[in-house]
């Protein structure tokens, strides 16, 4: 009986240690894994801006060199985490220079440990896609689009966490 228990304990211990080990590798893998940023032209980005499922999407246009963008980025990350269970998803559309993706954008994503999805919008035809995204957008960064299948609003402004959350709430509880 005692022997059996010892066996069982040892067995359990092995299982647990394996699990722990596995979890550890997963974390470190994520930390050191190669981050890649998908580069899209406007036609490729467009489907991300007009999804018609049950989610509410918060799309932030930003760049690593844009100080007010970087300042508000944690708020978008916080929203992405806090509202994930309410069907909210954040997408960060970077307007960094395509040549600086490896040098600036990816190190930035790693350093800040960004969890929201990041894509690069690389399309020179700004005079077409800026008004297509929103008629009133002058092109200044930062800018944010919040939408779901019922509602759609564009903001050429910076956000505080409270202001962003309040706007988001109008989409969740119309």
């Amino acid at each position, binding site marked *: 009986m005692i022997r059996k228990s010892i066996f069982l304990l040892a067995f359990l211990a092995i299982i647990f240690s394996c699990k722990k080990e596995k979890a550890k590798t997963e974390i470190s893998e994520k930390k050191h894994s190669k981050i890649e940023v998908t580069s899209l032209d406007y036609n490729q980005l467009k489907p991300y801006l007009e999804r018609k499922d049950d989610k509410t999407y918060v799309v932030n246009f930003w*760049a690593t*060199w*844009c*100080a*007010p963008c970087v300042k508000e980025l944690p708020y978008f990350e916080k929203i992405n985490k806090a509202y994930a269970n309410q069907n909210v998803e954040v997408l960060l559309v970077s*307007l960094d*220079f*395509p040549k600086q993706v490896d040098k600036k954008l990816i190190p930035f994503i790693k350093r800040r440990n960004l969890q929201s999805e990041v894509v690069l919008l690389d399309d*020179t*035809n*700004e*005079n077409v896609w*800026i*008004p297509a995204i929103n008629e009133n*957008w*002058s*092109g*200044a*960064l*930062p800018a944010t689009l919040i939408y779901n299948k019922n509602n759609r609003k564009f903001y*050429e402004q*910076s956000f505080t966490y409270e202001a962003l959350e309040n706007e988001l709430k109008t989409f969740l509880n119309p």
Partner: protein
Amino acid sequence: MKTIKSTLLLAVIAIITLAFTVKTDKGYKVGDTIEDFSLKNVDGDKISLKDYDDVKGFIIIFTCNTCPYSLANEDRIIALQDKYEELGYPVIAINPNDPKAQPGDSFEKMKVRAEEKGFNFPYLFDEGQKVYPKFGASKTPHVYIVSKPEMKVEYIGAIDDSSRDASTVKVKYIETVVDELLAGKTPSITETRAIGCSIKTVK
């Protein structure tokens, strides 16, 4: 009593409407006449548009030291001044940022940048941020082409159709518009968009 109440209500509505009208009125539109200004240049002189006697108009560009989109366009702005100053459309660059919000855009730093890059155009400091709101500029770079003698806004927008990469430019908006104005034509392009850095203010 009822009349007083309704008058009050009307007044409140009027005030609200007015407040909103002012708020949505974001500066000059194409066709508007601009007011002159007097701003300090990097060489220390004050510059006004009325100082320019012999010109046909102006290429006014809101730009700054710190925005990568501005930096990516500096050589293009220098080339514009090279070409169009003698044709009667000089470039006037204005830095609209508040150095309290963006220390790299101080007047001292402007002087350094102008020297470094060999700016061949006046680079003015919008001290107190009084000028850019009149134009309704929202970002750097942001271009306004103005024709004399009415000081009429002919064009608002981008320098060309590829702000991030000079090597992939297909349409040079400023050149197209100024060439048409010089030829006595109405510009075929009046408004364009480009990505830029928001103008920095202390809130």
